């Protein structure tokens, strides 16, 4: 009986590992999604035919680190949407676990702050699992190519969440490099963030 239980446990954990997946690495082709925006309409990457790429950001309402970056996220869209790299923000948290991240509260925040970019709700958590985002805020810079949307950068927005002594604006540098036809020098970074609470499958 005990053995059976252990076997079951191994089976269950391997399934869980499979579902969670390692997520994307730089160079992978990122899948498109169809997620509901705060205005009630759905948004996909294909809705941007003129885009050269995308700045996909997993972020949320409640996380103090995400909030610390909110104005920098808004600035990124203002800076790069017109150049072909719009910001697409995705909130991954299960509102049952974190009520502050409910679609209603997302809508409130986006309206109050006048977000110029979509703020999508990953209600199933599938997109977040596929991309492999673990914490907010977490950025994926994608470049549109004939093969698909290639992941060019994964990680933090810059090297100082507090914003008092920023030495490296990772996302800006990555997008600037792509805009001038080069590959980003720094392609993945890590930073402290709030762990994402996905809805259980």
């Amino acid at each position, binding site marked *: 009986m005990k053995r059976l239980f252990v076997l079951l446990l191994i089976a269950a954990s391997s399934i869980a590992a499979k579902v969670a997946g390692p997520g994307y690495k730089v160079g992978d082709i990122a899948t498109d999604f169809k997620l509901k925006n705060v205005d009630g309409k759905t948004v996909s990457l294909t809705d941007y035919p003129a885009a050269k790429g995308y700045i996909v950001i997993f972020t949320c309402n409640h996380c103090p680190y995400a909030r610390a970056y909110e104005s920098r996220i808004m600035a990124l869209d203002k800076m790069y949407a017109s150049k072909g790299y719009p910001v697409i923000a995705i909130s991954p948290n299960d509102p049952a676990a974190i009520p502050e991240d409910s679609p209603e509260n997302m809508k409130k925040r986006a309206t109050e702050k006048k977000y110029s970019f979509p703020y999508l709700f990953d209600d199933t958590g599938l997109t977040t699992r596929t991309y492999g985002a*673990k*914490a907010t805020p977490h950025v994926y810079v994608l470049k549109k190519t004939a093969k698909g949307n290639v992941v060019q950068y994964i990680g*933090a927005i810059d*090297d100082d969440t507090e914003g008092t002594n920023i030495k490296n604006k990772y996302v800006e540098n990555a997008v600037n490099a792509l805009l001038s036809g080069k590959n980003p020098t720094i392609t993945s970074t*890590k*930073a402290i*963030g709030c*762990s994402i609470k996905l809805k259980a499958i």
Partner: protein
Amino acid sequence: MTQIRLFLLLLMVVFVFQAKAQQKAVRLLTIDQLEKRVSHQDTVFIVNFWATWCGPCVKELPVFDQLQKTYKNQPLKVLLISMDFKSKLNTAVVPFVQNHHFTSEVFLADKSSEQEFIDRIDKNWSGALPGTLVINTKKNLHKFYEQEFTYPELNKLYQNSK
């Protein structure tokens, strides 16, 4: 005159004690210092990374402190390392720690680079909080858990790491 002197002396004593209390409550810790600390043989280190602003972290901190209390006579060291901004030491971290009266040692990560700090703790850590590192040098054990713990889960982890 003597009264004033006495008063000043008292004031000084109070200041020194306060400074001591603060010092004891939370100390700064660099990654070099942490690596040196946890390399100590014959001790199991359970290092929890948390922040005052992180809800799930604050919720599970008592679980870690309970483990340290329960096994205070065993070679177990629970270290609680706050990843709060250094600028929040006196305004957020110290008051929080003073309110909680932890038995475990509490530190504030002194990180020149967040990236380097995270990578040197564990390559697999995304940076999400909370996170827990278990080290037993004698058993060559170094494992990072990017998850929350209940007391039974943590206790089991400790028993398996001894």
